[in-house]
């Protein structure tokens, strides 16, 4: 296992970005479901 200095920062940022995108997509999914139920 390799653990060079700068890596932890990059990994954390990537995980935050990914989780953010993911949650936004989940919300989008929920909103689309609601709109589909209305029409």
């Amino acid at each position, binding site marked *: 296992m390799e653990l060079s200095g700068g890596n932890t920062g990059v990994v954390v940022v990537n*995980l935050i970005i990914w989780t953010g995108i993911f949650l936004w997509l989940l919300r989008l999914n929920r909103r*689309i479901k609601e709109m589909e139920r209305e029409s």
Partner: protein
Amino acid sequence: MKTISAWLLWLWVSLVILGAFYYAPPAEGFQGGSSRILFFHVPMAWASFAGFIAASVWSIRYLMTRDLRHDRAAEVAIQLGLVFGVLATVTGAIWARIEWGAYWNWDPRQTSILISLLFYGAYLALRGAVEDPEKRARLSAAYAILGLVVTPFLYWIMPRLTFSLHPEPVVNAEGKPKMQSEILQVLMASGIGFTALFFWLHNLQTRVQALAERKSAAREQGYGA
């Protein structure tokens, strides 16, 4: 997409991110840890091509069934293919700069993905130029299938040409057969993750477009009544 499977996807991609930095060692002959970019760059290219294939399949299904939902699926697949393709090209260019010193090298793979982007753009340009939905679906389906037939030739020609016509043979040293198992595992896992993400985005976008069409159709009917 059910919430459980969505969260599984989240977990999967998170593990890929961790694996890319902690599990897989940096590849030999690359500048520092820059080889890790390949775990994201390559799967995005794969997802982009998957989009092209999916669009062609949906185009064929449209022509056989004349169901406009297949046409919409094809259009969204190309749109997403374009987005993923652009991202793949950009990440590839960044990596090329680090590795080979220049953003663009006319490397066979770089050129191939650029031509694919031209195809996606052309398809969307065609769609923009036809108003009638059925005619638009018919013509763009035909073009997508034509594209599918023609693109394999590029993959046969490209590697040959850049070595014979260009003096500096910049070899794309991905060294697939020599890949260490950890690198290969993370790469495959990332490929699966990105493809799943692609189809989730596809699902969302097709539903959004369907809703938008229904809304504008309802509005038009409102005026007609």
